[in-house]
């Protein structure tokens, strides 16, 4: 259910949502390893999906989540549908529900994101191994999970701060 404030100016929020999703996907595929010292890459698209699914659930319907995962598969060369499936299932299981949506405190958000992240990576590992016909390499997945858990609180803190400062919500 959209709140009255959200109905007033949804276009800037929608634009901001699209921009952050594209930026996350591009950053996920960008050659960041060219910069010395950068060897960890968090799962940026999942962070963005999770936050938008909490702030503006109607911006992240299942089809959008699936499409973002599929785009990541295409850009990164992963077997088709692996990330699409894992994002779809994990967000469906762990997304915030109810009238209030995402809480305004950091710890419950981080905890729920950790659950989403773990489930997404377990599904990705299982489906990726199935698609490849051999066990996938689990080490990069572990590194991704650790990097994401370390990076997410900072991102969530910025989002919550902005949300508090603007009653209309994240970027909206």
């Amino acid at each position, binding site marked *: 259910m959209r709140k009255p404030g959200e109905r007033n100016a949804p276009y800037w929020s929608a634009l901001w949502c699209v921009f952050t999703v594209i930026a996350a996907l*591009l950053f996920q595929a*960008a*050659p960041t390893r060219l910069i010395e010292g950068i060897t960890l890459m968090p799962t940026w698209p999942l962070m963005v999906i999770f936050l938008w699914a909490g702030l503006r659930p109607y911006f992240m319907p299942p089809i959008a989540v699936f499409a973002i995962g599929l785009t990541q598969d295409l850009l990164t060369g992963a077997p088709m549908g*692996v990330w699409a499936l894992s994002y779809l299932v994990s967000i469906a299981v762990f997304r915030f529900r109810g009238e209030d949506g995402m809480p305004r405190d950091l710890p419950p958000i981080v905890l729920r994101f950790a659950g989403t992240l773990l489930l997404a990576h377990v599904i990705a590992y299982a489906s990726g191994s199935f*698609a490849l*016909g051999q066990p996938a390499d689990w080490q990069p997945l572990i590194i991704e999970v650790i990097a994401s858990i370390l990076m997410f609180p900072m991102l969530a803190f910025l989002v919550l701060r902005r949300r508090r400062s603007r009653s209309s919500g994240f970027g909206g």
Partner: protein
Amino acid sequence: MFDRPSSRSEAFASFRAGFTDIASPLLELAAQPIRAVKGIGPYFRAQGDLARENAELRQQLIEARYWEDLAYRQRDRIEVYEAALNVQTAATEDRIGAWTVADPQGPFVQARLIGRGSDSGVADGYPVINLYGLVGRVYETGRRSARVLLLTDLNSRVPVMVDRSNARAILIGDNSEYPRLEYLGRNPDIEEGDRIVSSGDDGVLPRGLPIGRAVPTREGGWRIELYSDQAPIDFVWVWPYVRAEQPEAEEEPVVEAVEDAAIEGGAPTVEAPDVPVTADEPAQEPAEAAAEDAP
């Protein structure tokens, strides 16, 4: 050799290549700031060592001049030999230069997306090299982009040999930084630090591309420290190497010549025409070459 799993079927490959064609300008744009700041770390770290590094470089320059002279002399000799034998080798200028536009990191594929595709002459199977050695091979080609499967990928299989002893092996990627050597035989003639190059067996890759140096493992096996990993893979060359095909049945021209001679009553003689010998490909069949020479 170079397995392609079902997840990379032709239908998906062409769809994916089309998608990356559309996305490659955006990815190229996203890579620009990263490329711009990639030297910042080494720059600041190197400031303290500049004097020592400068002295070392001067010494290396003196040594390099000797090798430069030697290289020029060898080049002159090779030119004389090639002219005498009419050898045709793949020229350096034929290689297609390309920048890396995407560098996905993940558990499923070790690949790079480069900003050149079939419009520039890139095709599936072409070897990709950087300044130091073989990087991998092209496995999905779009019009303006192509995906390069690295030697470290789970699906990479490359026939290699020890440069010193010519001992053959297969280089198998397992997503680790050091791909492993398999099928070396019972008593392989290989030592730590041996230079490993592509063997050219199976005609998939040209012979002699530098790959890495041999490193023994605790389990008694061998792995390769890749030369191409000396620096981040950014600018690469795609080598338009045409895979050597199996020759057609060799007996037919000889049999035909014998039959013709028998009919004419003369001695069968099959003369080899003046065919250029290609360094990377087997020599043409005499009958085939003669047919090509015919007006």
